[in-house]
């Protein structure tokens, strides 16, 4: 199994630990990742809010680069994943749009055909590699650790045919938590929005929405796992701002789901970037026990 890796801008900077842990986990699971050469920013929700055609075209250039290698794309950031996936899916169904994309790429020497798929690591681990195979590779038990699976928005939405999980009641992260021997904590806010997209333009709204998620998790869970750099920034890095604003202690660690898997696979905390999370992850690391098998 081999994928064209599209880290996206966040994984190069603010979500460094996501990039590190994705690479480590996929290596341990025997999947090869080859970074797309000279990929560009997908434009995220900003390009999409300024010009729809621009948003599609930015994604199309990356698709064209990956098609040259004839590999499906693996995109860990849900916003990148949505933009690439949406363009890839749309040009497969709409000949006219495909022609338009190639018009947009004219003069770059690149052509897009619509011959590859775009996948999220959650989908690949649960459906392509398989949850049983993951469970087989577990060497450390996370027994007793209660984890709140936070999916956020665009990993499962908007619903269109062929999406890998339910938009209202997704289970892929739950299954991963169980596979690594931990417990899924009761958690109402699985797919509620954290307001991350408004983090800069409307801080107050982001803090209110993120706080509700954090308080729900605090009640029943030892930590939250997420699959999104923006959600992670909103819940982890900005947790101290929320605590200050509302004058309360929250202190809920927020891990990328790949960091949790990595611990179970026996990868060192350092290699998983667990020192880069804002809320200390020490308690979680200490709860890892050598499995008795």
């Amino acid at each position: 199994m081999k994928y064209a890796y599209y880290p996206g801008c966040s994984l190069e900077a603010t979500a460094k630990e996501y990039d590190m842990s994705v690479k480590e986990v996929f290596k341990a699971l025997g999947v090869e990742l080859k970074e797309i050469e000279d990929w560009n920013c997908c434009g995220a929700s900003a390009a999409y809010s300024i010009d729809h055609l621009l948003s599609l075209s930015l994604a199309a250039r990356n698709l064209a680069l990956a098609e040259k290698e004839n590999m499906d794309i693996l995109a860990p950031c849900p916003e990148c994943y949505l933009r690439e996936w949406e363009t890839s899916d749309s040009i497969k169904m709409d000949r006219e749009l495909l022609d338009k994309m190639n018009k947009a790429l004219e003069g770059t020497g690149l052509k897009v055909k619509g011959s590859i798929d775009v996948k999220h690591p959650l989908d690949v681990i649960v459906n392509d590699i398989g949850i049983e195979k993951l469970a087989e590779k577990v060497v450390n038990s996370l027994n007793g650790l209660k984890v709140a699976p936070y999916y956020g928005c665009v990993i499962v939405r908007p619903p269109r045919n062929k999406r890998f999980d339910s938009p209202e009641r997704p289970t892929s992260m739950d299954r991963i938590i169980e596979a690594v021997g931990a417990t899924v904590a009761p958690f109402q806010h699985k797919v509620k929005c954290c307001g991350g997209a408004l983090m800069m333009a409307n801080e107050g709204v982001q803090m209110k929405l993120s706080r509700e998620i954090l308080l729900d998790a605090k009640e029943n869970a030892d930590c939250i796992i997420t699959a999104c750099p923006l959600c992670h920034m909103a819940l982890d890095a900005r947790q101290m701002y929320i605590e200050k604003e509302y004058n309360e202690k929250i202190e809920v660690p927020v891990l990328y789901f790949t960091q949790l898997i990595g611990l179970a696979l026996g990868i060192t905390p350092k290699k998983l970037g667990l020192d880069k999370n804002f809320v200390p992850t020490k308690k979680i690391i200490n709860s890892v026990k050598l499995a008795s098998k």
Partner: protein
Amino acid sequence: MEQIIRLKDCDPNFVYEVEEAGGENVHLCFQCGTCSAGCPTVYTMDYTPRQIMRMVTLGIKDKVLNSETIWVCASCYTCQTRCPRGVEITNVMGALKSIAIREGVRAANEKGPAFYNSFVEIALSYGRMFEPLLMLKFAQKSEGSLSGTLKHLLRHASLGMELTKKGKIALMPHKIKGREHMKKIIENIRKIEEEEK
């Protein structure tokens, strides 16, 4: 709430303009309000998503483009997921943002357009995001004055420092080799959009 809608204030083509900009099926809305019921940011909107859908079909362009609502939408797709009529509500909000930016409408809260414009300018010139510049551009655009900009940056300085300490902020931008491609793509898109007019 009593409201008078004057025909002369309505633009019957507005709904097509919105659909053309990526927000499909607005005309199918039957005003059930499921979108507003599930919206996480509705509490801070001046018009609910349901009202916006109705105003779009009626062509009350001015009020829609000047509304706070379109900039408070967090693009979470909850409304679009639940709409029983298949209205692409989140995409409609996206389309409305793009029309407002294109037409230079001064938003009630100018931070929304300031953020999107800053983001895209950097993405198109470098081919990648560069967070320190994003912070700077956004502060300049949203605050306007030099003192406002400095105050804004100071307020976020501690997060910036922490991110730098953890090696989570690049100190220099990564510029892709295909920056010419970005220019070509923008040129081509202008041409396509001109032809489609």
